[in-house]
């Protein structure tokens, strides 16, 4: 799978819409087999989404993203996992192991303790509820 992640100071860039650098990693069986970094200019959501799709990206892990850009990316067939934060390498490892749902990777505001009613429909936790509760969350 080819995964992209906007980066800033070795961490996930806080806002995808304003990110300047994008790391594109091709993973095979959880290990990175190819990495490259591209610079993102000031682009419209459609142009940015098209550029990301042209890089062969299948999944994009990012922090905050505007609805317009999310829609543009999804219409290009890219799976968007948003509202993430943390160090890039840790996030990539967690993605490869299917552990992105951990609370440490959640931006504030989009992560509620499971079962709470005010979980935003936008948050990835709401769309993909974890199978088990992390012990630390209690």
């Amino acid at each position, binding site marked *: 799978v080819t995964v992209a992640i906007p980066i800033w100071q070795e961490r996930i860039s*806080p806002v995808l819409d*304003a990110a300047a650098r994008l790391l594109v990693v091709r993973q095979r069986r959880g290990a990175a087999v190819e990495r490259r970094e591209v610079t993102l200019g000031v682009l419209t959501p459609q142009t940015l989404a098209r550029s990301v799709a042209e890089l062969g990206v299948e999944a994009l892990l990012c922090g*905050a993203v505007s609805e317009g850009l999310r829609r543009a990316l999804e219409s290009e067939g890219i799976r968007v996992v948003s509202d993430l934060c943390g160090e890039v390498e840790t996030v990539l490892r967690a993605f490869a192991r299917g552990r992105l749902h951990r609370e440490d990777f959640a931006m*504030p*505001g989009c*992560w509620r303790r499971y079962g709470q009613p005010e979980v935003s429909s*936008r948050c990835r936790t709401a769309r993909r509820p974890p199978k088990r509760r992390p012990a630390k969350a209690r």
Partner: protein
Amino acid sequence: MPQDLDDQLLDSVPDGVFTVDTEWRVTSFNRAAEHITGIRRQDALGRRCCEVFRASICESACALKQTLATRRPVVNKVVYIVNAAGQRIPISISTAVLRDARGRLVGGVESFRDLRLVEDLQRQAQAQESFSNIIGRSAAMRKLFEMLPVVAGSDSTVLLTGASGTGKELVARALHELSPRRAKRFVAVNCGALPDTLLESELFGYAAGAFTDARKDKPGRFALAQGGTLLLDEIGDISPAMQMRLLRVLQERVYEPLGGVEPVQADARIVAATNKDLRQLVREGRFREDLFYRIHVVRLELPPLRDRREDIPLLVEHFVTRFNRLQGKDVAGVSDAVLARLMEHDFPGNVRELENVLEHAFVLCRGGLIELAHLPAHLRSGEAAGPSGLPAGLTLAAMEKLLICDALRRHEGNHAAAARELGVNASTLFRKVKRLGVARPTARRAEGRPRR
């Protein structure tokens, strides 16, 4: 002050406020900040500010970082944030440093204001001041804005009258865009620019073999505007023969392309425009009366700019924004002196002239405000003189002094003659000369013999 009092104080502020420590961790987050960002205080506290605030500048030009580095506040910088619901929210931010009781730097404070309401209000205000790119808030323009949708909804022929540069084509386009024909084409023909034969082939097209070099069919403007709108600009300038042909098309809704044998159905909404007084042309026998009444179904008159001077500031703002966008400049607007000059100018070329004046100024102005020096010569030449020929900005006393000096110079210092010309008594003039400190003209003494 106890902590909860601090919180109460911050919560009473309508702007979003948060503070950070020197590690960029959020240390307080007020209720308005919760509301604007969609993030609860308990979720925000202790987190990195960029993960909570998610502003467009977090990565590239963090205002708090700048303030903490320079110790200088940032005031009303406009950026956007992406809130918890994924909406881009325009905000204006201000930052300052935070110090403890001993004056040591302990972090920074950022306040931010949601600009959505302001933008909504601006949009509403602009909507009232423009209509399909036609700008104006004067009574004449408001009346026009009210009429446009109604007229556009009908299929009647419209006659647009108004001086050159008043925006007749803009109105014609607006009529098309607002009409049920908007999905089809808007085609404009300048009837005054073409000789008869050319205009005929331009309007009706020709069939192959109609004349030498007519190797294949060429559709005319009527065919191109089929189902859409056809603007016949400068209709007052067409020849009597052409008027006759046009009348037939308008009456029977059919025409024959040059060299063609089959009549073609004309289905275009006709908008005619002219800067001439058609009624006068009819009286002079230069315009067919029947054609006049055929096109004079609904008449919209566009006022000259001198009759709606109150729209000039709005138009200036519109063109400044437009030229900034087109030329990638950052001109803030025009100076008060320039606006005053534009307001007193008669603009014989109307809005087009104003547009050209500002385009000229944009070439010369590198940024900041457009000044008098950036205006074209015909507006700048009167820099020192007002409409009366007198320098602008004079006081009454200065004007009096100037007129007395002038009269004395013309009469070579002869007070009696100057007083006669000015319509005052010689002794009054003497008194005024003394009071105003008018210098005696030297002409006679220099050229003639000395008095003593």
